[in-house]
Every structure is written in structure tokens, then in C-alpha cells.
């Protein structure tokens, strides 16, 4: 096929820059680091879900030969947390423990065995308190408080926002439907457990190597808790063997390793066990949801009211942001002219929840897409056409003031509907076989940083060596998604060299300019834009000297294949290296910087900080399932998925992200559950926490839909998280198509399917799911005027 794009690197399925080391097993992960005289650290964790620490005695542990230091919360009294509004964590709990696994003391010893022995010698006396393990208990036991800093009982945060008058919208509806859904919590399950190595030098400076998605935020937390100037702390994020959101907080073990190293003067390594990773968690929030939607006869939405209840676990983590996210992106897919959102996060005595791929949005997306499927059926509408007719417009504002730039969702829908043969299959397959459809959208990077500031979100520096070598420095951390490679591709494309000519140096707070981290699908868009700016500056210098040398106007020159030549007379050219040397002679040492900050969001209401993004990605998905009506076992046979990426910088990486998202979505749809008995994690192991393996993975047919977005580097949007979102609802809708029962609770286990089938056979509702939400008052909503385009009409002209 002829190459239609003018690019030589962008759009090509090149290998990742770190592929060779990974394939050869030579990537150095945090746990692979072994420094001279290194000690091993271990954390003592609470066996109680909720208890007061009455007394702690570490003397016996200190006396054990081979033990070099034992610390408790008294050694690290300053609280921290990822969000400024919830600085509620202690590296080692001081007065109280709040979940089974909460760290209370730590040891550094000559080896892991000795450290383990020492933990047994730490005497802790607890006074157990009643444990709160569900949303209902959290609300009922408002006197039994897990934290004191929040306003009411165990409600960490309650938010209410109303955009326009929803009642007015419901009054305009021809049909109104309400549904209740529950989305179970799940954990990230990265292959690599968290690990950190700290080394405190005789110069009073600290280095921390850690498997983290957010070295910049870890840097800040260390400075705060250790009371050291940030300039004396260096955080190096090691290659991350999977993160998915689970390594985005500053963690106890990172701070503790640093403190132990400071006390002993020796390097200290702490690697969590698999079980500890289940306790450190910060995974998907369990969310109970209620949704009410008013529609016109053709399915046009007139108003939507959405309520969410998040089971937050023991600490804040990203929870306040997660709460807003369960309400923010409903409006970005279909036109919703009036919208009300109420969300509440409660504290419970379980490991804290936080961000997992899709952060706070897969839960409401599942609810929304199943809810719409039901509405389509109630109204006798085709579920695809109903959605397709009412998609958001490009270059528009949503009712909650989010700016839509490009949206190729229509093309995505057409692709998967056609490829899957949906129209020939829907409601026509034999009993037990079914297809389901769902759409979604996600942000390409959060519009605001986690702590309030006006500085760039991402910075890139480039240095060029006389020999033609190019080094790119950026604070971003590659967590497997390929962000190092993206930097190399972008810079190589602009300078007209090859990715292998580039050395990428990332995620080192001493060497690289700040990037906020690998979360919120921000990295390609933000580091890509910053890298483009830095590379363009250097290219300009190179073209200046090349133009002079070749006596060709600058604007006629192109840089490609390690040469700079005259587009009109390609014979006239100089090599990249020659241009570099001329430029250095002319301008001095060659280096440049670029940075990126997202455009300001038009929304100005309280709570408008969560949701804005430079652009939104879109996904459409069809799932085909087989349901065994005798066993209830659901087998997903195939997924067709189309993703609006804007521009794919490397289609291989895009497909990898899509397939990985499908895999993760399937796990949540069918089996994954982070569940507890009396606050004790039921199954903290890779064997018993059921997550699909490659053998459970179905066929996936991926379509990449490209229409460049003005805000992305070369037009790129996100792909790391969005494609997960439509998978669970597509599967749920397919199960309904196959056997006629609605499973309104994820995961869709065989037990639930069978129960719903049995209920249906008895003549009852063929449904499994929650039937009520807590009877609790939300604060009066912040009422927000709708943007001008939504002002007069509730249903826009010409949608039907």
C-alpha cells in the first residue's frame, strides 16, 4: 500500500526502544538493584482492620543479631498523601490502624530472613475497634469514625453538581427509566511487585530508586515527610513492570526505605510480596450507582441524573478525584442537555482504593451503556442507531463545560458493527449465543495537575552531540506503554534521524525536567508536544546552517534519513552530522527545551478541575459471547473494537494498548474481585485472585481510526485506558442477547447468570443486581449554568 502520510517514523510499526533489553531479560527493575553493603527492609503490618495502637515495643527486635534499625511511626510523624486535600497517610501508623495490612513498624537487616524474624519480635498491643467493611456500615456507623479530618462521619467527600435544570429536562422526556448497578472493586495485578532501594550518602543526599508511575510526586512526598530540601533528594523511577495506576501514589515502603537508609548509612531495599501488593492496592473502587435518564421517542436524551457511592477503603489516595470522575465523562459521548451528578466516597476498613486503568470511569460507563441498552429495548429502538444518532458534536462544549475537539466515534461504530456482522446477529443468534454493543470516551491527559501550580505539565530537554548523537531528557516514566519510545519517535521524525540514534533519559529528578507522571493517559500528548517544541527549535538551527551551506532557502529544506536536503533538488544535501557541526560552530553548544501545559478549561465552577482534557478518545466495541445456560459460564468468543486515536504514532503500540485494555476489561467483566471477609482480603494471591491468563483471552479484532486532533503531537490522542471502558458493558449486553437475563453487577459470574436464569424460569425478573441505594442526603447541588449552545433547547434540532 502506498504510504499516504508525509512521515518517515510516525505511523510505522517500529520496535520499542527498550524492546531488546526486555526480550533479553536485561532490563534492570528496582528489585534487581544490588548495592554494596545493602540492607533489606520489611514492614510489620496490622493484623486488625481497625484498632488503636496501645503500646509498641521494639527492643527484642533491635537486639536480634543482623538487625540494623527498627523504626515506628514516631520516626516518621509527618502525614502525606497524593492529593493536597487528603494528606491522611502515615508511613507507619502511629495511633491507629485502619486496615489489615496497614504498616506499623519497619526493620532493616542483613537479609530478608533476619528482617522477617525481627518483625516477629516487635510487640504491638492493639485495642480492636469495630470494623467498617461496607458502604452501608460506613454510613450507619457515623460515630465510629475511621478518620477525624473529614466533615461528617465516614463520608470523606460528597459532591453534587447540577448543569441546567434536570427536572425541566425530565419534563420534556417521552420516557424515563431508572436503574441501579454495582461494579465490584478489582486490583491492578502488575507482574512486578512494588520495590524501592534507598541510598543516603555521606554528603547528606538521598537517592531513591523505585518502581513508580509518579517520580515527581514521590519526590515531593519524600521532601515533606523527611523534612529535606528537594534539592537533596533524587528520585529515579526504574523501568516499571506494569503499573495500571497501582504505582501512582507515594507509598509507605518508599519513605521507610529512605528513612532506614538515613539511619543506617547503608542502602536499603524493600520489595513487597505479592500479598503485600494486594494490601497496598489503590485499585478500582467498588461503586454502587443509580441512574435516571429521560429520553425522547427516538432516544435523544433530555436529562440525566447520576448518583455514585464509592467504597474508598481506609485512606484518601486519589479518592476525591475518583469521585468526581464517576460523574465527569458521562457527557462526553452522547448529547446530554441537562445533567445532575451526586457522588459520595466513604471510608471503610479495607485497603485504600485509588486509580486503576480508566480511573473512576469504567464503573459509570458500564452502568450507562447497559442502561441505554435497556432504554433502546424498552422503546423498540436499535441500540446502535439510538446511540449513533445522538453523538456529541466536534468542536463543542458539553453541558458540564468540557471541550470536545475531534470525535470519530461514528466511524468507530460503523467499523465494529460492520466487521462483527452485528446487524445479522443481534437478537437472531440461537439461545446461548449473543452479541452486545457499547461505546465510550476517555481523556487524553488531565487538564490540571494534582497540586495547584502554573508550571508546565511536561518538560523535555534535548542535547546534540558533535557526533550526531541526540539525547532526550524527560521526567516521564515508561511503564510498559512505550513512552520512552514515543519520545524517540517524535524527536527522530522532526530531526530526520532514526529512533536508534537517540538516547532517551527519563524519570530521574536530578537529570530530567519534570513530567507529572504516567497517569490519566497524558504522556504521549504532553511529552510528545513538549518534545516537538524542543526538537523544532533545534531543527531550526540545523536548517539555518544547512540553508546557508547549500544556498537554499530554509523553507525548502527537509530533514529525513539522517540528511537535510532541498525538496526541489534532492541532490543538494548535507548529512545530519555535518549540519550539527556547522550549527555548533555557529551557535555554540546545542541544546533546547520544550514544555507543555494543557489549554485552560472553559469550566469555572467548583469541581470543574476533574474532566477537562486537551482531547478525548472514543471507542466502540462489540462482544460476542457464549453462555452455557446449564452452568452459567460465560465465554467471550470475540471482541471487535475500534478506537479513535487521532493519529497513531506507532500502530503496534496502539494495538498493544487496545488488546491490553480489552484483556483487563474482560477480567473485570467476568471474574476479578477484590473481596474481603471481615476486613481480611479473601484471596491475596495470584492463584486465587482470579484474573484471566493468555489462555482465557479471546480473539480481538482492533481497528485504529485516525483523524488528527489539533492538540496532539502529530494529532495523537490517548489509547492507554479508554479501550477498557466499553468492554464490560458490551459483554453484559451480549449476555442479555444470549440468554435474556440482565446482570447489573460486575463481575458477571456463572453463579449470577444462573440465579438470574432461575429467577426468570420462575416467572420473576430475569435480573441479578442491587435493588437499592443508601438513603442518604447529598449536599445541595452547585448549580451551574449550561454553556450557551445548550441554553435554549433541551433537545437540539435535527437529532431525530
Amino acid at each position: 500500500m502506498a504510504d499516504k502520510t508525509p512521515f518517515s517514523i510516525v505511523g510505522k510499526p517500529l520496535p520499542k526502544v527498550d524492546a531488546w533489553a526486555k526480550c533479553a531479560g536485561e532490563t534492570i527493575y528496582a528489585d534487581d538493584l544490588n548495592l554494596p553493603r545493602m540492607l533489606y527492609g520489611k514492614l510489620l503490618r496490622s493484623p486488625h482492620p481497625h484498632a488503636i495502637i496501645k503500646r509498641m515495643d521494639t527492643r527484642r527486635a533491635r537486639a536480634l543479631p543482623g538487625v540494623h534499625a527498627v523504626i515506628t511511626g514516631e520516626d516518621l510523624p509527618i502525614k502525606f498523601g497524593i492529593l493536597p486535600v487528603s494528606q491522611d497517610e502515615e508511613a507507619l501508623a502511629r495511633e491507629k490502624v485502619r486496615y489489615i495490612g496497614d504498616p506499623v513498624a519497619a526493620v532493616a537487616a542483613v537479609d530478608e530472613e533476619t528482617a522477617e524474624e525481627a518483625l516477629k519480635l516487635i510487640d504491638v498491643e492493639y485495642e480492636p475497634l469495630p470494623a467498617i467493611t461496607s458502604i452501608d456500615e460506613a454510613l450507619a456507623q457515623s460515630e465510629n469514625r475511621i478518620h477525624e479530618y473529614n466533615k461528617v462521619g465516614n463520608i470523606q467527600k460528597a459532591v453534587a453538581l447540577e448543569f441546567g435544570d434536570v427536572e425541566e429536562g425530565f419534563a420534556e422526556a417521552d420516557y424515563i427509566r431508572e436503574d441501579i448497578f454495582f461494579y465490584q472493586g478489582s486490583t491492578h495485578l502488575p507482574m512486578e511487585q512494588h520495590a524501592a532501594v534507598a541510598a543516603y550518602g555521606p554528603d547528606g543526599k538521598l537517592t531513591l530508586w523505585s518502581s513508580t508511575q509518579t517520580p515527581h510526586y514521590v519526590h515531593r512526598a519524600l521532601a515533606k515527610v523527611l523534612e529535606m530540601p528537594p534539592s537533596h533528594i533524587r528520585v529515579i523511577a526504574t523501568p516499571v513492570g506494569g503499573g495500571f495506576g497501582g504505582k501512582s501514589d507515594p507509598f509507605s515502603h518508599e519513605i521507610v526505605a529512605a528513612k532506614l537508609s538515613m539511619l543506617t548509612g547503608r542502602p536499603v531495599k524493600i520489595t513487597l510480596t505479592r500479598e503485600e501488593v494486594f494490601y497496598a492496592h489503590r485499585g478500582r473502587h467498588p461503586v454502587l450507582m443509580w441512574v435516571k435518564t429521560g429520553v425522547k421517542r427516538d432516544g435523544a436524551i433530555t436529562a440525566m441524573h447520576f448518583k455514585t457511592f464509592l467504597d474508598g477503603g481506609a485512606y484518601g489516595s486519589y479518592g476525591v478525584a475518583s469521585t468526581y470522575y464517576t460523574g465527569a465523562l458521562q457527557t462526553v459521548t452522547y448529547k446530554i442537555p441537562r445533567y445532575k451528578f451526586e457522588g459520595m466516597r466513604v471510608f471503610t476498613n479495607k485497603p485504600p482504593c485509588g486509580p486503576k486503568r480508566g480511573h473512576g470511569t469504567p464503573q459509570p460507563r458500564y452502568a450507562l451503556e447497559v442502561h441505554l441498552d435497556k432504554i433502546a429495548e424498552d422503546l423498540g429502538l436499535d441500540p446502535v442507531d439510538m446511540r449513533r444518532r445522538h453523538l456529541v458534536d466536534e468542536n463543542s462544549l458539553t453541558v458540564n463545560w468540557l471541550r470536545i475537539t475531534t470525535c470519530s466515534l461514528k466511524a468507530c461504530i460503523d467499523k465494529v458493527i460492520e466487521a462483527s456482522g452485528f446487524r445479522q446477529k443481534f437478537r437472531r443468534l440461537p439461545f446461548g449465543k449473543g452479541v452486545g454493543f457499547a461505546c465510550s470516551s476517555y481523556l487524553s491527559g488531565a487538564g490540571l495537575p494534582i497540586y495547584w501550580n502554573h508550571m508546565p505539565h511536561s518538560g523535555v530537554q534535548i542535547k546534540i552531540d558533535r557526533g550526531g548523537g541526540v539525547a532526550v531528557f524527560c521526567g516521564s516514566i515508561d511503564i510498559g506503554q512505550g513512552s520512552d519510545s514515543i519520545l524517540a519517535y517524535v524527536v527522530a521524525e522532526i530531526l530526520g534521524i532514526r529512533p536508534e540514534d537517540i538516547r532517551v533519559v527519563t524519570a530521574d529528578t536530578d537529570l530530567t525536567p519534570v513530567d507529572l507522571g504516567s497517569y490519566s493517559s497524558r504522556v504521549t500528548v504532553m511529552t510528545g508536544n513538549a518534545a516537538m517544541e524542543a526538537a523544532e527549535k533545534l531543527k531550526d538551527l540545523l536548517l539555518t546552517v544547512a540553508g546557508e551551506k547549500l544556498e537554499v532557502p530554509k523553507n525548502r529544506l527537509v530533514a529525513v534519513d539522517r540528511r537535510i536536503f532541498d525538496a526541489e533538488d534532492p541532490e543538494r544535501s548535507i548529512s545530519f552530522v555535518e549540519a550539527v557541526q556547522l550549527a555548533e560552530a555557529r551557535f555554540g553548544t546545542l541544546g533546547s527545551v520544550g514544555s507543555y501545559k494543557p489549554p485552560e478549561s472553559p469550566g469555572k465552577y467548583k469541581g470543574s478541575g476533574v474532566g477537562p482534557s486537551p482531547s478525548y478518545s472514543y471507542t466502540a466495541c462489540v462482544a460476542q459471547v457464549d453462555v452455557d445456560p446449564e452452568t452459567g459460564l460465560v465465554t467471550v468468543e470475540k471482541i471487535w473494537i475500534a478506537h479513535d486515536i487521532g493519529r497513531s504514532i506507532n500502530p503496534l503500540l496502539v494495538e498493544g494498548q487496545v488488546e491490553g485494555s480489552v484483556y483487563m476489561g474482560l477480567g473485570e467483566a467476568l471474574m476479578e474481585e477484590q473481596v474481603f471477609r471481615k476486613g481480611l482480603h479473601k484471596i491475596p494471591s495470584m492463584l486465587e485472585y482470579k484474573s484471566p491468563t493468555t489462555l482465557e483471552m479471546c480473539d480481538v479484532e482492533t481497528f485504529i481510526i485516525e483523524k488528527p486532533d489539533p492538540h496532539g503531537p502529530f494529532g495523537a490522542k490517548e489509547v492507554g485506558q479508554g479501550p477498557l471502558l466499553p468492554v464490560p458493558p458490551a459483554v453484559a449486553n451480549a449476555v442479555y442477547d444470549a440468554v435474556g437475563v440482565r446482570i447489573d453487577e460486575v463481575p458477571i459470574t456463572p453463579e449470577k447468570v444462573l440465579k438470574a436464569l432461575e429467577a426468570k424460569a420462575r416467572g420473576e425478573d430475569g435480573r441479578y443486581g442491587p435493588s437499592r441505594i443508601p438513603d442518604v442526603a447529598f449536599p445541595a447541588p452547585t448549580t451551574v449554568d449550561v454553556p450557551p449552545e445548550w441554553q435554549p433547547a433541551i433537545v437540539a434540532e435535527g437529532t431525530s
Partner: protein
Amino acid sequence: MLRLPPFTYYAPARIEDAVKILADYGPDAMVVAGGTDLYPNMKRRQFEPKIIVGLRQIRELHRINGDAKTGVTIGACVTLAEVSQHPAILASYRGLARAAGLVANPQIRHMGTLGGNLCVDTRCNYYDQTLFWRQALGYCLKKDGAICPVAPGSQRCWAVTSTDTAPVIIALRATLRLVSPRGERLVAASDFYRDDGIHYLNKEADEILTEILLPPIDGLKTTYWKLRRRGSFDFPVLGVAVALAQEGERCRDVRIVTGGVNSRPMEMTEAERILIGERITPDLIERVAQAVYRPVKALDNTDFVPLYRKKMAPVFVKRALRELLGWPIQETPDGHTSAAG
């Protein structure tokens, strides 16, 4: 990572030597074959033997002899991978090959042995946990504790038999050879197991299982069906072995044995009685299947809710019988419907 407790490892080359080490050290010693069950359990401190006697160096434990006419003898250290691929077993004792081939994953089947599989510890998700976890729970009867949180009123342990091959071995009426400092004895496979999650084997600590003796196949057809969440590597939470011999349209002999429920593999004698000697019809199969519902005991200590596992027993028995009868059947033997149909 979780670390193994310290121990001394012996690797005798002869059974007599192994027996002698066991006699010398008494309860401080344990044997290990593939180690795929014992070592993870030791990391969790469910066992802390001071002495480990590895059986892998003992040549005679690796042999497979005989054929379907005379019977086949399998050494205890033959790996599950070998059992699942051995031509004589594949041809005539198909259910055993299938059960062995459905254990865990390829890596574990290449290390794990048939003997180890028959002796595999009973499982319970209150017990298969780290020391930290069990301490947070307050321990249980099976290890270090005084009560059973699964059935707090009961005096016994309800940990679940989790060997895939035992139900087939029992259905085949196999015999096991055990060697100890006191000599040698043969025991019927069905007598090897006890309905007790703690003392789940009729075997002394110093007895070594050396051979599994399969009788002549005598017209029996065998199969094994397994319920688990993931076909890739999960333990059974219900296993059904069926051996069936037909005479024309009648059933000459049938054995139906469950695993993955109860504390021992259970022969479903009532169901068998309904079928033996009768003309086989779909209705009769349905009745046979229903008869296994009552004796199956499933508690809330494995994956899946217990009632679900119990309900699946009749479904799996029915499907296993239909498979052996050559009647149409859509599903594959690990419970998941095949796409091919």
C-alpha cells in the same frame, strides 16, 4: 518474596535409603517429589519439616509398565505430563490421561508427579494463606488454631480434596503400593482417603507411595470433567470421574467419583446403583445425575459459591456420562463450552 524455612535435603537413590532416613528422623521429616505442592505450602509455613527426603533420584519410581490387558503399573514419581501423554494410558485409561493433563499448567505438570498428586494437601481458602494472613484470621484447626471458621460449630476440618487424578484412580479400582520401615502394603485407592480435612490420607508419615497399579481395563471407558474458573491453571472445585462399561444397550458397570468437593473423593454409590444393569436412556441419565446432588458437600472455602458447586455436580455427571455414551455434547471437559461446538 516469601522465603522457604531452613531445612536439610536428602536425595537418596534407593527406596530402602529413603525409608531409613524417614525412620531415623520420624515426624521431623517429609518426602518431596515434584515439590509443586509442598514448597509453596512451606513458604506459607503450613509445614516446617526440618528434613526433606527427595524421591526424584530413585529410578524405579519413574517407570510405567504393562498394558490394558494385564494392567498398567505407574511409578509414583512419573510426572503428570508423562501420564497425560503415555500411549498406553492415552489409549485405554483415557480419563486418567485427561485428569493428569488438566492439572495446573504445563510447568507444574512437568514437575508434579502422580504420587504427589494423589497425596496433595486438602485445600481451603482460610488455610492456603501466608502466616501473616492466618495470624490475622486467628488460625484454624488444620494448622495452629482451635476452631474452624468455615463451620464454626463443627469439630472437624472441611478442607477440600483437590487432587484431579484421585477420582479417576478410584473409579479405575486401582491399588496403591506403600513402603515403610515396617515393610510394604497394598491399599485400594478408595481406602487411601479419609473424610477429614486434616488427616485426609490413610497413610503414616513414614510411608512412601511407590506404585499405582491400574487393573486390566476390561471394557471400561473413562472420562474426567473438571469445574474451575480458569482452564489455564486452577485447582478443581468440582471434579467428576466416570468409568462405564456397556453391554449392548445396558450398563454392565459404572463408577462415578467426585473430587473438588467434600474432604475426600466420594464414590456416588446411589447414583451407580440406579444405572447398573439398566437400559441406558436420557431420562435414566438425568435420574442418575440428580442422585449425586445430595451427597456432594460444598462449603464456603473455595472459589465459587458453595451452592453453585453443588448444583454443578449433576450437570457434570450428566455430561460425563453423555460423553462416554457418544451422545451429542457441546461442552469441553473443563466446563467451558468450546467455540467449535
